[in-house]
């Protein structure tokens, strides 16, 4: 038992460093994309179509990771694609968290009819396949960054509200809340000053998970060509293009896929690591 604890204790450090490192790299890539991109991500050159990455035979060193079937530079497209992925992760993740956690806190601590309505809404939401719901919303709202963000918030707020509601309910039954009530604190005051800080570690862990999910949702929407305007480079769009030319140019699929893998894995490992870090039992 002692060994297991020790391992868990040592692992989050490494996990946090690795995942944090990759995400930091990604932020830098996104911010400085216009400066470090070797090519214009939209520039087509049909004479340089489907060039393999640098270590393969027939590669052109000017195109480090090769080109797609229209001769566009993959590295530059990946760097620009990181911009959309990270924007969606940060904005949609945070907004989903705010909406979901607020509703969960209201349902879990204030109970009564608010809890009834919110819980029933969560049940109804659970009746929809999330990807289908997202695609349906995009069909109605039209494509574009705002639509993607709205769709993610509308679909995924239940993830936060379910967990936060349960946590707030168990915290609400604790003695320290009762003593705060006896001390004459207002319900809202207790919710914000007592319940919220105790639920916060869970919320933070969920938030990083949600950012990874937002990246995936955006990639899926781009994959089915329902994200932003088609000429903007996205990882999902690159994957769709790679899927169709998989037998001729595997690298078009592999590089954005690896970026997506690492990003989603990093967000979830960051969440796990933070959860362990905040967990008083493990600390």
């Amino acid at each position, binding site marked *: 038992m002692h060994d297991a604890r020790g391992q868990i204790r040592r692992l989050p450090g490494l996990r946090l460093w690795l995942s944090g490192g990759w995400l930091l790299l990604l932020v830098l890539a996104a911010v400085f994309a216009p400066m470090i991109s070797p090519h214009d991500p939209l520039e087509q050159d049909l004479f340089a179509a489907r060039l393999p990455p640098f270590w393969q035979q027939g590669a052109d060193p000017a195109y480090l990771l090769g080109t797609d079937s229209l001769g566009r530079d993959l590295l530059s497209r990946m760097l620009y694609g990181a911009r959309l992925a990270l924007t969606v992760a940060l904005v949609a993740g945070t907004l989903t968290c705010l909406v979901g956690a607020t509703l969960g806190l209201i349902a879990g601590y204030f109970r009564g009819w608010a809890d009834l309505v919110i819980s029933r809404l969560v049940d109804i939401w659970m009746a929809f396949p999330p990807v289908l719901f997202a695609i*349906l919303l995009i069909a109605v709202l039209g494509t574009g960054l705002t639509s993607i963000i709205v769709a993610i918030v509308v679909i995924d707020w239940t993830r936060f509200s379910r967990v936060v509601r349960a946590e707030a309910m168990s915290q609400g039954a604790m003695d320290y809340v009762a003593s705060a009530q006896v001390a004459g604190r207002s319900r809202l005051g207790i919710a914000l000053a007592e319940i919220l800080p105790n639920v916060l570690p869970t919320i933070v862990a969920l938030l990083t998970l949600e950012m990874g999910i937002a990246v995936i949702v955006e990639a899926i929407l781009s994959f089915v060509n329902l994200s932003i305007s088609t000429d903007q480079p996205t990882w999902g769009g690159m994957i769709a293009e790679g899927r169709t030319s*998989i037998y001729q140019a595997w690298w078009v699929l592999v590089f954005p896929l690896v970026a997506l893998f690492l990003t989603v894995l990093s967000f979830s490992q960051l969440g796990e690591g933070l959860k362990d870090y905040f967990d008083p039992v493990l600390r």
Partner: protein
Amino acid sequence: MQIVRTLLTRLATTIITLLGAAIIVFVVIRVVPGNPIAMMLPPGATEADIARLEALYGLDKSIFEQFLIWIGNVLQGDFGTSITTRQPVFDLVIGRLPATLELSVMALLIAIVVGGSAALTATLYRGTKVEGGIDVAGGVALSLPDFLWGLALILVLGVLWPLFHISGRVSPSLGFEFNTDFYLIEALVRFRFDVVLDLLGHMFLPALALAIPLAAIILQLLKQSLKECMHDDYITLARTKGYSETSIIARDALPNAILPTLTLVGVQFTFLIGGTVIIERLFSYEGLGNMAIDAVINRDLPLIQGIVLVFALLFTLVNLLVDMTYAALNPRLRHA
């Protein structure tokens, strides 16, 4: 008596959930995008066409009346007519549903077999490197979604090492005429094992992609329940009787540890079904989800509406079934 009341309450909430889902579909499709008739008609439709369709769908009436008309039609199985194919939506959906069901059930089976055996192995070798390895694999499996697993499988088992098909449901070159839409069951019943093999070769990768995250969930929960069981008295008793560790885990611990996992599998099964939407697209598998994405791209609103409702019905029914099975299996709930 208690169980009857529990079931009735559960049935009532199911109906409320379904009604809520119907309202949301109605609101999203009818109210938000402005004039639905304009979207239902092909470009170049005349004023008379619009008026005729508006009367047909009762759009000259109030929103509430419109909803009643719509829900009345839906209850009678009238989901409207698809704009792109001009066929009744109900027929289209029923024609595609079997493909999705076969894929989902296959994925569920894979998840149970893989997750279950991994949990049993990890319990047998608890405290060793084997358990550590299984835990790490489970963690990675869980943190990546089916979409990414599908892409990875296409690359590794479809292209790099082409063992399985990566698109479609059946090879047209087989020239096999299906009489039903349950291809796999039909091929099995007609003893056409070449067709069965071909179908499985198409189904395996998408089913595995859907199964991997669920297998990881089964692994984690079942392993935890098994570990808790291993400290119980009857296990010690079985050990003193000299049974092997393998037989103790399989025969004594497993039946006692399996209930929480079963419940979770039920709930997670709906998530798996939801995943078919994008996985079918990825593998060009002709199921309901793939049709849904086409419908959205073609703005075929009656068809989208029908598919979303069928998914919602499927989800709530699976949840209801899980709750009822749980109530039937759990003696504490039965006699409460």
